[in-house]
């Protein structure tokens, strides 16, 4: 049980690092780094969603392009994010955007698109055909069908896709520190370089927390955004199976 000693000592160091007011101020302070991380991730997510949602919904609604829409997620999974980041560097340079924020942003957007697109497509495709028939029977126009029936019913899975993208983006934003971006990855990369394990650990802890909070936040958002009727239907359907 002598192993507990160094662990306790280390955790005490981490605590001391966190309690040091110098680490809460300035351009390398915790609030700044968290802010940078959230800002970068949120922007990338917004752009990815702006691109992927309309495409995924349109394809899902019309039923076309299924092969691509479903496999784009598989491709996204196979591509190592470090490589995407590396490819984003020359793109950023060509656009005169330099290091740090922009190459990371350019890498994050294509990372966020596959989960959102695939989920949106699948969500729309899985809307009960009977409901759609009923809607058509009631005389609903195509766009009304989409807005009033399909989207509300598809919402849970769509939000799940955005949630997955958000977590993936927060994760890869961490790697951006390798190309000189800010954010919490900075503590990890600098901690590795400086051999400061307390800084490294704090960075890792904060990133982990941020990712978990992001996941939970979207869970709450789904709870709020999805209409209770839809939720009941899904639950009943699940039980029947």
């Amino acid at each position: 049980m002598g192993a507990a000693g160094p662990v306790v000592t280390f955790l005490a160091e981490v605590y001391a690092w966190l309690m040091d007011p110098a680490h809460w101020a300035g351009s390398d302070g915790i609030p700044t780094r968290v802010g940078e991380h959230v800002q970068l991730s949120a922007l990338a997510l917004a752009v990815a969603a702006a691109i992927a949602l309309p495409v995924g919904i349109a394809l899902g609604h019309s039923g076309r392009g299924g092969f691509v829409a479903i496999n784009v997620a598989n491709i996204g999974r196979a591509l190592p994010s470090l490589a995407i980041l590396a490819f984003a560097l020359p793109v950023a340079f060509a656009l005169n955007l330099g290091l740090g924020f922009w190459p990371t942003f350019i890498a994050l957007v294509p990372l966020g698109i596959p989960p959102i697109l695939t989920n949106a497509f699948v969500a729309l495709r899985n809307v009960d055909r009977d409901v759609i028939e009923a809607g058509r029977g009631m005389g609903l126009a195509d766009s009304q069908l989409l807005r009033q029936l399909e989207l509300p019913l598809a919402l849970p899975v769509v939000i799940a896709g955005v949630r997955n993208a958000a977590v993936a983006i927060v994760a890869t934003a961490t790697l951006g520190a390798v190309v000189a971006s800010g954010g919490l990855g900075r503590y990890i990369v600098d901690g590795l370089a400086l051999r400061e394990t307390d800084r490294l650990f704090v960075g890792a802890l904060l990133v982990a927390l941020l990712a978990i909070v992001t996941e939970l936040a979207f869970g709450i958002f789904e709870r709020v955004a999805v209409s209770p009727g839809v939720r009941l239907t899904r639950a009943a359907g699940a039980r029947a199976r």
Partner: protein
Amino acid sequence: MKKENPMQRSRTFASVLIACSVVAAACGGTAQPSAQASGQASAAAAKPTVKVASFNFPESVILGEIYAQALEGNGYKIERKLNLGNREVVFPALEKGDVDVVPEYLATVLGFVDKTAKGSGDPKETSTTLQNAVKSKNLTVLDFANAVDQNSFVVTKATSDKYKLKKTSDIATSAQGQLVLGGPAECPQRPFCKLGLEQTYGIKFKDFKPLDSGGNLTVAALDAGQVDVGLLFSSDAIISVKGYVVLEDDKKLQLSDNVAPLVRNDILAKGDDMKKTLNDVSAKLTTDELIGLNKQVSVDRKEPRDVAKQWLKDKGLVK
């Protein structure tokens, strides 16, 4: 700034290879491989395996390769731990005995080992001070080379024109608190880096951006205007290629950073000609030579191993 031991796998691979070759040599018994043709046949069997390390920037890898191959040419078996990391990683490894030889820079390592030490512009003096400082750690500083590589703080021509910067002290007078400094992560803590600039020159920077050790990230940041002052190394060919303005070190913050091997005493004791081999290398290494070597690797993309091999051949240090 990210990896401690990227060559760990190569090291394992190399040690397996070395182990196999030792066994083969023992069982084979016929002609020794050409690397051991130095004529000390009986002593060759007693030569130890030397662990040569280097820092994680190309110049250090080249120097490490030069030391390694020079020693190999004299019958030593080498375990390479090149690209190991920065000094925070490499120096403890040297102290512990995980590595035996490191190509070091006199004044910088002196400042690292003893924060209060008085280095000087005279390499002989610095070398003596350094030897005294590392004596208790059972390390020896071998002969230093003429080659010097020190921290150079550079700005782009545009920045130099804008703030009228020619000397480092100009920053404090003309651009105090307005410039962003870019350098390796450890820069704020290093006496020859940001710490020294603050203390010796009284400079206040607007911000500091951790980048890399005078590498491409720093160059890119300078070009993109994301940092105003960048730390590069004086022997880097990129400075003239890019036309950067090197700020003159008028208050002599950078001291004599001559290249010298830092070696563990216990490994020196095991190899009689190790000192001579490495000293012969240092005798031929000038700053211009170093810049040339750097250019071949950084600009021409040649392999450090090949560049080192050719250089040793050209200088008659190996066959």
